[in-house]
């Protein structure tokens, strides 16, 4: 029997080992900043809010006061009439603002793309301006416009009332836009439309510019009118970008917070008509200091948005994109 001599692996020179290390690990070090930042500012809050949604916690009492309550936060929210009202408000304002946004943005983008060759950049920038304007400034302006006693809008409308013939179409008395249940949601929706039309125009313009010019040229040679070109070339080929834009609007509108908050304030407007779900979440955390309940609310909203996005995907998404034509 011969004793086996263990073979000692030949030590690589330091230089080669360093090269090896670099080849193997350097890429990870280079991409690590993103993952580190994401872990701290993305993953941790998500996981923590999930953990929080199963606990009762008043933030000001310190971390030690968290108590496990199981599914109670979820059942509490689902049996809370105000929560359902906030969902309803969110849905209504989302539709009232979402649909007009696209109905305005698509033809507008088409028109800009067709005719305004030289000043296209400038016009687009102008339309994009509301999207990047400070929310506080927007609030001041719109609240001043909608004000019941002192609002510009009411001054204009009531002065139009005295016109002959069409005067009857306009109100004789000031309308309390933000103090009337019927008007506050459209008022908020109009601000959302005003803010996001430009954003959608930019999206649709980029989509339009991806459509080959020669299609239009061929169509006009064949005698197609502008409407026919829009209907049979632009719309079908714009579908992928429409899907993107509508998905973004859907997610954005269901998470609506800024516009209703600046117009209606903490109170959620008259009869809570402008209280969106995210506003209610903010109120629950900030004023009721019930962090667990607020976290559960955010997860319920997440589930809803997820389901609607999935539906949108099925209706509008990839399967229909290629088209059967």
């Amino acid at each position: 029997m011969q004793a086996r001599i263990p073979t000692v692996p030949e030590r690589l020179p330091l230089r080669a080992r360093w090269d090896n290390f670099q080849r193997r690990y350097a890429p990870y070090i280079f991409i690590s900043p993103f993952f580190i930042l994401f872990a701290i500012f993305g993953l941790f809050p998500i996981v923590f809010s999930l953990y929080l949604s199963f606990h009762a916690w008043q933030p000001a009492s310190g971390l030690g006061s968290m108590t496990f309550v199981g599914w109670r936060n979820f059942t509490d929210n689902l049996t809370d009439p105000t929560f359902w009202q906030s969902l309803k408000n969110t849905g209504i304002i989302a539709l009232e603002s979402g649909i007009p946004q696209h109905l305005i943005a698509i033809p507008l983008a088409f028109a800009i793309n067709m005719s305004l060759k030289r000043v296209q950049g400038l016009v687009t920038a102008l339309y994009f301006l509301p999207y990047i304007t400070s929310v506080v400034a927007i609030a001041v302006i719109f609240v001043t416009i909608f004000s019941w006693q002192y609002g510009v809008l009411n001054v204009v409308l009531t002065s139009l009332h005295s016109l002959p013939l069409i005067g009857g179409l306009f109100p004789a008395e000031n309308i309390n836009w933000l103090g009337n249940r019927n008007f506050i949601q459209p008022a908020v929706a109009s601000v959302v439309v005003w803010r996001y039309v430009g954003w959608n125009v930019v999206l649709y313009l980029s989509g339009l510019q991806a459509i080959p010019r020669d299609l239009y040229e061929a169509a006009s040679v064949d005698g197609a009118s502008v409407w026919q070109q829009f209907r049979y070339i632009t719309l079908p080929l714009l579908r992928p970008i429409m899907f993107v834009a509508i998905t973004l609007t859907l997610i954005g509108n269901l998470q609506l917070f800024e516009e209703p908050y600046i117009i209606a304030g903490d109170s959620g407007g008259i009869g809570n008509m402008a209280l969106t779900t995210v506003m209610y979440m903010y109120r629950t955390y900030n004023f009721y200091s019930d962090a667990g309940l607020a976290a559960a609310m955010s997860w319920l909203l997440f589930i809803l948005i997820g389901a609607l996005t999935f539906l949108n995907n099925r209706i509008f998404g990839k399967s229909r994109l290629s088209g059967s034509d």
Partner: protein
Amino acid sequence: MHKIALALTLALTASLAGAQAKKTITIGVFPDLDSVVKAALPGFNKKFPNIEVKINSLAYADHHNALTTALATGSGANDVEAIDFGYVAKFAEGGGLVDISKAPYNAGQYRSRFVAYTFPQAMTDDGRMVAMPTDIGPGSMFYRTDLLQKAGVKPTDLNKSWDSYIAAGKKIVAANPGTFLIPDASEVEGIMIRSGLKPGEGLYFDKDNKVLVSPTNPRFVNAFTVAKQIRDAKLDARAGAAFSSDWTTAFQKGNLASEVSGAWLVGHMQNWLAKDFAGKWAALQLPGNSFTSYGGSFYGIPSQSKNKTEAWELIKYLTTDANQQILAFKTTGAFPALRAAQTAPLFNEGVPYLAGQKARQLWRTAANRIQPIDVNRLDPVADQIVADALTSVLDGSKTVEQALSEAQALIQRRAR
């Protein structure tokens, strides 16, 4: 050589001694309290040359958000924290703030020196006290003398009773087209539900956490009914909460005949809110013998502070030193919570903006007649629900009874 060594040793010991004796503490405040503290520091440093104070001032909401975060995570709070009345109950829960009723602080010994209702505001059900009161906002009615004259209404007609207030208001609005009696009808409800509390009752809950909001509780029924009368008579500007844009515009245009608020409103009126109407406003006690408070500020010590002794010295100086409390009143018009400060000659002088009226005596009387109201953890929730209920009564979508029974059910859902 020896000399140098000696000098070095001396310098070293001196600096060490200095480092041991001189302590830096921080105080977290919001405007206008920051000006009050700034003005107080020279006097404080004279008394305590070894305590250096650093002021960290943030905007009102930011300050309280930062404090919430600091208390939640157990780090990052200042040694002394200013707390607005609206947040005291919230921060009193848990152990985030030091219980100053216990040794070595024994805040209870100062209780008789302060306006009666302030101490209970900072106390919890289990008898802990988390903050010291510094300024208060005794409620007052302000009215436009010229508009009243034009309508032939006497000031006493305004505050005899709520009915008399409404009757006088109708005359004023009729005689001065385009004006309103009050910015919002809900303000009257706010005063009325804070008046006539029975012993053991809080605003919305009693001692045993039973919900008091109900369609059979006269306190709420009357408040809702009177507010509705004001709305129906078209007497209010429907301006919503104070400091809303409509509220501000109505003030600046001089369209308001009266307003109910804390004494501090005069400062706002003379500085920016109603500059053009100086000398035309005057003050009265609230209608129907009501005495309510509009806010106030407190100072507390977070449990995480490493310098609690020095922090307490600073709080004591800011709150229990009469000269300092008078200085604060001179600086920003912060009405002293310390009774000794209210006997200063200053309080017998006229207020220039109110045409020289000696209104401070009025506010002093009001301050000492305000009853303490027990706070409850769920007050903010109930507050919001009752406000919503009132809104639906005011715009006619629900009856008083309906709205109150729905509000009762909603609050009971939360109070488990």
